[in-house]
């Protein structure tokens, strides 16, 4: 497939990172300084996933918009806005990656939502397939947002986004509302090819 032909190759440092993470998971505290240094001095690690996420985002936007260039542009802008909003004003590299992952999950969910609605007019088997896909995309999207919340809760100093105050239900829900469940502006709402304006 064309989407996979340009996927960046896996950098060799990933295997080294896996080994370090494995040792840390087993409770080996002596590995922590090495792991910290590894994360700070291997920009190719973050670049790899950044490139991969960018590539995936573009491929999903192409799938959603097909040949409609106006829709492609507006979807790309909407995805960019969401990524910026989720990452916050001065995002760290890990925060940027988590925001990028959430945007990918959002694109996947939007696509699944649309096709699940369309599939209601088709056979039960096809409708079931899209309904399951929609449910798993929704779960993945919530998990990706949860990861961002975890990072900001545990490391508010390092995460560039607004820290979430979990002790105050009002502000903590507002933090999520601002990015997730805000009312959708019809001007910027994602539209699919063939769908009436």
């Amino acid at each position, binding site marked *: 497939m064309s989407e996979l032909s340009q996927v960046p190759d896996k950098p060799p440092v990933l295997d080294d990172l896996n080994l370090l*993470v494995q040792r840390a998971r087993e409770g080996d505290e002596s590995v*922590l300084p090495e792991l910290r240094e590894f994360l700070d001095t291997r920009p190719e690690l973050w670049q790899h996933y950044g490139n*991969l996420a960018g590539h*995936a985002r573009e491929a999903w936007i192409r799938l959603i918009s097909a040949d409609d260039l106006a829709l492609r542009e507006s979807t790309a802008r909407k995805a960019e806005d969401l990524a910026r909003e989720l990452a916050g004003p001065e995002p760290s590299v890990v925060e940027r990656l988590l925001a990028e992952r959430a945007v990918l*999950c959002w694109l996947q969910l939007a696509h699944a939502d649309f096709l699940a609605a369309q599939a209601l007019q*088709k*056979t039960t088997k096809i409708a079931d397939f899209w309904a399951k896909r929609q449910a798993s995309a929704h779960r993945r999207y919530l998990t990706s947002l949860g990861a961002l919340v975890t990072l900001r809760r*545990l*490391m508010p*100093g390092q995460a560039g986004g607004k820290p979430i105050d979990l002790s105050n239900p009002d502000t903590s829900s507002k933090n999520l509302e601002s990015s997730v469940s805000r009312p959708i502006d019809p001007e910027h709402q994602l539209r699919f090819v063939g769908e009436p304006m």
Partner: protein
Amino acid sequence: MSWQLRDGHQYFYLTRRKNGSRQTVYFGKGPVAQLAAADVEAAKLHREQVRGEFCMTRDRLRSLDGLVRQVDQGARMLLEAVLLSEGFYLSHRQWRGTRRVRALSSSR
């Protein structure tokens, strides 16, 4: 069941499932039979077309889902690496840290 040869002539039969049992409807060999046969053929073609489109979309999605999965796994691993390197640990699927670790992380 479709066209069947009986005594040297082709007759059209249509089998449907009704209330759990099979029911065969006889259409004969005249214009009604031709129309029913054409209708069955068109429905079959439509089903094949829908199935073909569905398989094509599913195959294309498989490669795109693979990309999302790679980013997903990478982000999860890097988040885990960052949190472990700061002294946090995973307990019952919840990230925890000692008071000292939490204070250090928030002051950075």
